[in-house]
């Protein structure tokens, strides 16, 4: 998709890529966007236009990551966005997968043992994601904010190589593979599709936002460690 600019209409962004609705929500924009452009919406809602377009472009285009622009934003903006992203995983996406998955395991006259085992795998990766969110809230985000407020942020370099293997993403990939390649027994095809689509949506969101988290926030954590504060 072409890069989003100040003149791009919000309705074109959403119709071209419906998954951006959730990102727009985190940035303070809800549905009913009329024919507003990025510039007019940011002006009305007093949003930072550069931050707004950069986050959306980073989400939509996998190759897009303007390091200098990203590093120029205040840590509070990025922490606020990632905090809202975590809240979305916790209150919307994980419950959405879980609800459909539970219906799937209860569907049919005979219990499907494969689906029950796969549901346990989902519970494990869900707990791992919730633990990470908890660690973000209690440890990482407050420390990043403290460093930024103390002026340490200017010494922290963006780490373009910080694409560490994410076990949560790997596990979601694995669970999708189990559905696609190894599912046996009786199951409801519609509910299966719903679970797979919900998992794929969660995977994409985590994958895109991890680029921001791993390249911008984890270097703060590394800097803290090297300064002996941890």
């Amino acid at each position, binding site marked *: 998709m072409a890069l989003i600019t100040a003149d791009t209409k919000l309705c074109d962004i959403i119709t071209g890529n419906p998954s951006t609705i959730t990102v727009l929500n985190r940035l303070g924009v809800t549905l009913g966007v009329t024919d507003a452009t990025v510039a007019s919406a940011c002006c009305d809602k007093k949003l930072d236009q550069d931050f707004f377009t950069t986050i959306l472009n980073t989400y939509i285009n996998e190759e897009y990551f303007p390091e200098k622009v990203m590093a120029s934003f205040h840590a509070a903006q990025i922490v606020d966005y990632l905090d809202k992203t975590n809240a979305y995983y916790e209150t919307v996406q994980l419950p959405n997968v879980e609800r459909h998955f539970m219906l799937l395991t209860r569907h049919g006259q005979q219990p499907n*043992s*494969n689906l029950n*085992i*796969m549901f*346990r*795998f989902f519970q*494990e*990766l869900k707990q791992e994601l919730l633990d990470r969110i908890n660690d973000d809230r209690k440890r990482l985000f407050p420390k990043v904010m403290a460093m930024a407020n103390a002026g340490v942020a200017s010494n922290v370099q963006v780490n373009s190589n910080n694409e560490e293997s994410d*076990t949560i993403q*790997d*596990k979601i*990939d*694995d*669970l999708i*593979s*189990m559905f*696609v*390649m*190894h599912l*046996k027994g009786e199951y409801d095809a519609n509910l299966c599709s719903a679970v797979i689509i919900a998992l794929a949506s969660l995977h994409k969101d985590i994958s895109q936002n991890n680029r921001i988290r791993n390249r911008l926030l984890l270097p703060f954590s590394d800097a803290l460690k090297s300064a002996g504060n941890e």
Partner: protein
Amino acid sequence: MNKTNVIVLMHDTLKGLGLKHVLEDSFNVAVTIAHGVEAIESMGENVDYIFTDLLTYASSIKFFIPRQSKTIVVSDHTTADNTSAMLCSCDDLDTIIDTLGHFFAHHDNDSAGSDGILSARETDVLRLVASGLINKEIAEQLNISINTVLTHRKNITAKLGIKSASGLSFYALMNGIIAPK
């Protein structure tokens, strides 16, 4: 799907090259011409089949006996030798291809693991991964090198589409490769 690794070790160079040509043209295999059994030994577990002639077989019998199940002896004439699979180089091309096809199909069925996707050895590795062993411990347990363990793990992930140790454990549970705790 990964290619089957075939080694051709023939006294007669032209026969070796001809066999390589027939194998690569008719089957999904990667063929390497070897010069001496030492070269095959150095390849470790990455060898699925060895094609050789009677003369080479007889002169390196100690090497071939432990590898009997994956050795095919090419002969100039049909002989009643039950030590290894036989291929007669005098047969017409269709018969040769037919014989090879039967051999590969039979061997694939023999070596399949309990889930029908992984080989027996890959299933062994998966069972140990699912039991929580690290690569070094798996290598010691199966008496193979760490590199061989890594190759098996790579093949398992490619075949199953599952790469996390946790995902592999749940797969093993689903397919009865390990028992529920």
